């Protein structure tokens, strides 16, 4: 056996280029697996631990106003184990040196002691002092971007009154792991903050003494959240309850869950591609090795080695390659996992990241790789083991060739002999050719799959912020206001246009299906806010009836012409029957849209508006912001341009990371497949090519024959890779379809170009390396030996 191991070592050394290429493909698979699974585990554990340690609530409800003693009745609801009341308010902030509108969610904390649910992890500073009505704790992400430290202060407009707030501490909360403004698609740390303040101070400002407008609860084990929520809604309805919801509908938690889903799908698909490619490459290489070593195998058998030892010898060859791949992949996966973890920590605010390396992740990655590799090489190894010695002494029968389809079609005349050689080689083993093409195609597919989120995001941003929203500023009022307020806005210096809107929270119902969302009253003939039909063409809101987000329509199973029940969750809480007039496309959120006058009529509320879309002269924008901060009835303002910018800023690092990884991995696959095909083909055909050299063909001419075949495989693979890449994108996007957002499967020409370029460059590189060998063919040796 020892001698065989020497042979193994030398054989591997001789084929080190190919072995390394396969090692890298396996390493890529193991790396993506370890990276994605470990990151997912780390985020899961971190989240669960944070939720548990800081007592993240399980049921949430907001309402208009309820006396404190209602809390007692909430606690009596069967299934509720604990309930804690709070006062929550939306405020505007005025930050020195930052002229844009900033809004914040202000949440009360008990004056004395700490809250029981949604406890804060104080990163710096201290809790607010019991007797201070101007101290706040600010969310860490917000403090970081504005470089706030405890002791710093900023202005706030609380219920119309300007007040200076002093930062006592900087904290994280399980409730705001993802700190994102309602209705926004990504966290905005610059323009949205979460602040915590003493209950008394906040109640005083909002006239909520002895009352609350927000309640968070935990459930006793075994309670059904559905039932609890129904009971709570019944109980809180008369206090202006906006509908209770469980953890799964809590914003921050929802986004986390969606992100984990994407990680999970990626963890399934990408490693599978790499391992499949690696198994294919191993199959090709080991088959070829067995073929070239026929005579050696025969000799070994003649000396008395049994089938098992011969089989084991080749299994060992596979294992050495796979194990080196697993080792490289694990190290790279762990290293990149920490990087990805850090990126997620920027995005999601956890107090700590519990990145622990589970041996089981590496073990399972290893076992899967080994199993796939052995399955891929089973046939070749079996063939080696069972080779009858006498037959093995004879060279393999020569390959059979036929005329190609092209020639049967009578087009043979246009082909030169070298081109014929290329085509017949390709046709000779169509299965192998197809696998090679598929292998290279997977390289571009991986690239497209890895870069697809960037294109999808670009497209969503374009639809959401350029076609749907066209305003410069969105202004929301503290509460529904007369339309006169819009005229006032329009009169402000620099404001060019103002279009009113009305947003009404509502429960939409059809049959037994329902959805809690908002109905937006839209200004007919508006230019700043347009609705888009399912083909993304602008459409006008009808004068009667409601338009629904296409996804919402599907969720409710409702058709055009059906009557929809709209339970308004505001004011007099009317229950309205509205005919569905059509569907609109929206990638973010779910909504119903009506003509603002029609909505006002149904609500019997005159000309109430919730806010307005403004277009404004660039030069006056900061003056306008200032006025809006000071305007008491304005709850907040959002600048569209800034929102887009922020969106890209928060996504940029993650996108860059994934593009980087995809490029490397796609390049490795392309290189691995092309290089291996080239080397195998070189070993099969060096004799033929050397003969041609002897006959007077130049290096360039034989390179054409040889590399032409690779070029053909590569070029054919690219369109196939585009299709497969699209398939991967569809698979990932389908996993993410939810009421929060729908990912459009849009792949930009740039991405296709990039994928094709990476594949071509990798193919050229491996071509060049092999070309180098081609230039050093031993012309004399080839004449002396039989094939």
């Amino acid at each position, binding site marked *: 056996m020892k001698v065989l191991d020497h042979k193994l070592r030398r054989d591997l050394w001789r084929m080190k280029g190919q072995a390394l290429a396969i090692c890298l493909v396996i390493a890529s698979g193991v790396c993506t697996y370890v990276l994605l699974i470990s990151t997912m585990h780390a985020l899961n554990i971190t989240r669960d631990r944070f939720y548990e340690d800081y007592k993240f609530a399980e049921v949430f409800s907001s309402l208009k106003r309820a006396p404190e003693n209602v809390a007692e009745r909430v606690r009596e609801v069967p299934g509720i184990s604990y309930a804690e009341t709070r006062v929550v308010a939306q405020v505007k902030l005025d930050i020195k040196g930052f002229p844009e509108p900033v809004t914040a969610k202000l949440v009360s904390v008990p004056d004395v002691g700490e809250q029981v649910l949604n406890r804060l992890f104080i990163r710096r500073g201290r809790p607010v002092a019991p007797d201070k009505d101007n101290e706040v704790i600010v969310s860490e992400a917000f403090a970081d971007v504005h470089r706030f430290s405890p002791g710093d202060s900023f202005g706030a407009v609380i219920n119309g009154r300007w007040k200076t707030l002093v930062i006592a501490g900087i904290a994280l909360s399980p409730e705001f792991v993802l700190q994102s403004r309602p209705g926004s698609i990504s966290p905005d740390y610059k323009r949205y903050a979460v602040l915590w303040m003493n209950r008394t101070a906040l109640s005083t400002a909002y006239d909520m003494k002895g009352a609350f407008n927000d309640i968070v609860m935990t459930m006793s084990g075994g309670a059904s959240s559905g039932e609890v929520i129904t009971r709570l809604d019944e109980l809180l309805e008369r206090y202006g309850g906006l509908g209770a919801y469980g953890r799964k509908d809590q914003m921050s938690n929802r986004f986390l869950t969606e992100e984990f889903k994407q990680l999970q799908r990626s963890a399934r698909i990408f490693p599978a591609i790499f391992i499949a490619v690696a198994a294919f490459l191993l199959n090709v290489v080991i088959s070829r090795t067995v073929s070239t070593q026929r005579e050696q195998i025969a000799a070994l058998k003649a000396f008395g080695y049994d089938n098992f030892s011969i089989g084991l010898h080749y299994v060992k060859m596979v294992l050495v390659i796979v194990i080196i791949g697993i080792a490289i992949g694990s190290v790279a996966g762990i290293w990149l996992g920490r990087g990805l973890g850090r990126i997620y920590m920027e995005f999601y605010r956890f107090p700590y990241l519990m990145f622990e390396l589970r041996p089981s992740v590496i073990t399972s990655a290893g076992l899967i790789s080994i199993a796939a590799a052995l399955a891929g090489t089973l046939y070749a190894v079996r063939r080696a083991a069972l080779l009858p010695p006498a037959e093995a002494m004879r060279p393999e*029968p*020569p*390959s*059979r*060739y*036929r*005329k190609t389809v092209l020639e049967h079609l009578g087009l043979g005349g246009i082909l*030169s*002999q*070298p081109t*014929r*050689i290329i085509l*017949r*080689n390709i046709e*000779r083993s169509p299965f192998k050719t197809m696998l090679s093409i598929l292998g290279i195609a997977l390289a571009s597919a991986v690239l497209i799959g890895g870069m697809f989120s960037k294109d999808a995001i670009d497209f969503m941003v374009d639809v959401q912020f350029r076609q749907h929203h066209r305003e410069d500023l969105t202004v929301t009022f503290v509460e529904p206001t007369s339309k006169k307020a819009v005229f006032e806005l329009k009169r402000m210096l620099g404001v060019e246009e103002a279009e009113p809107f009305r947003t009404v929270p509502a429960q939409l119902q059809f049959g037994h299906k329902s959805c809690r969302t908002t109905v937006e009253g839209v200004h007919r003939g508006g230019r700043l806010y347009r609705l888009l039909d399912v083909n993304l063409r602008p459409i006008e809101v009808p004068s009667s009836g409601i338009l629904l987000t296409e996804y919402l329509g599907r969720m409710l199973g409702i058709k055009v012409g059906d009557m929809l029940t709209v339970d308004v969750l505001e004011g007099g809480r009317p229950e309205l029957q509205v005919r569905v007039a059509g569907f609109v496309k929206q990638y973010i959120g779910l909504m119903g849209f009506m003509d603002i006058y029609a909505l006002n009529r149904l609500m019997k509320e005159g000309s109430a508006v919730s806010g307005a879309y403004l277009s404004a002269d660039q030069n006056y924008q900061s003056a306008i912001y200032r006025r809006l901060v000071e305007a008491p009835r304005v709850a907040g303002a959002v600048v569209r341009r800034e929102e887009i910018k922020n969106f890209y800023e928060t996504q940029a690092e993650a996108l860059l990371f994934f593009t980087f990884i995809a490029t490397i991995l796609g390049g490795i696959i392309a290189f691995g497949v092309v290089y291996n095909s080239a080397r195998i083909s070189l070993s099969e055909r060096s*004799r*033929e090519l050397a*003969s*041609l*050299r*002897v*006959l*007077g*063909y*130049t*290096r360039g*001419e034989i390179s054409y024959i040889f590399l032409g075949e690779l070029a053909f495989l590569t070029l054919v693979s690219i369109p196939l890779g585009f299709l497969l890449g699209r398939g991967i994108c569809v698979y990932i996007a389908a996993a993410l379809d939810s009421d929060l957002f729908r990912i459009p499967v849009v792949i930009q020409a740039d991405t296709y170009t990039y994928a094709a370029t990476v594949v071509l460059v990798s193919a050229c590189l491996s071509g060049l390396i092999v070309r180098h060998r081609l230039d050093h063919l031993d*012309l*004399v040796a*080839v*004449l*002396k*030996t*039989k*094939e």
Partner: protein
Amino acid sequence: MENASPENKAGRKTVFHTQGLTKVYEMGDVRVHALRGIDLDLYAGELVVLLGPSGSGKSTLLNILGGLDTASDGQVSYLGKDLTRASERELTEYRRYHVGFVFQFYNLIPSLTAVENVAVVTEIATKPMDPGKALAVVGLADRLDHFPTQLSGGEQQRVAIARAISKNPDVLLCDEPTGALDSETGIVVLEALERVNAELGTTTVIITHNVDIAGMADRVVHLSNGLISTIDINTRKRAPRELHW
């Protein structure tokens, strides 16, 4: 390149001229002297057999004459042109336009038919004959569209000869052309070579370790241990049919 071809005293054109030709292979730490100083002239239109046991240096000599290998020392010229100093590119051109090779193991391209295997050479030659005609010369006019796997060894070797002569080479170099064939088939192949030599006047060099084949040569060069031991001149050339082994 000097175009004035040197001629010997008898007025025959000298095709190859070697002087003190030496070839040393470095095989690891061992130096193998394959040729130890060969002085030889080969003349236009003659058929020369290089005879010698294995390891005598005959293949090395043929490879150097054919521009496949370069000498370690000494000189070799083809029609007055120094091959010792030729670049890789010049050697490729030399092989492409002047030399026809026939190998022991035929070295046909498996993916091309007989006629295409010939065309592989005629496509890059300057004054080729028709591939079909070349195959007719070697008696394979009816096997044009067969792939190598569909041909016998002798037929494959005749395709190789057709390929070699199809460019109308100035010299035909054959390394053990019958080495892989039985005697009956070998004779057919030798007849083809003889015909080419006689009809086209191509200078032909055949390597063999088979003494019997020497009978068909104009001159027989005996090599032993990297040196020419003797050169015999056949006064009566025998036809391949008369040869036996």
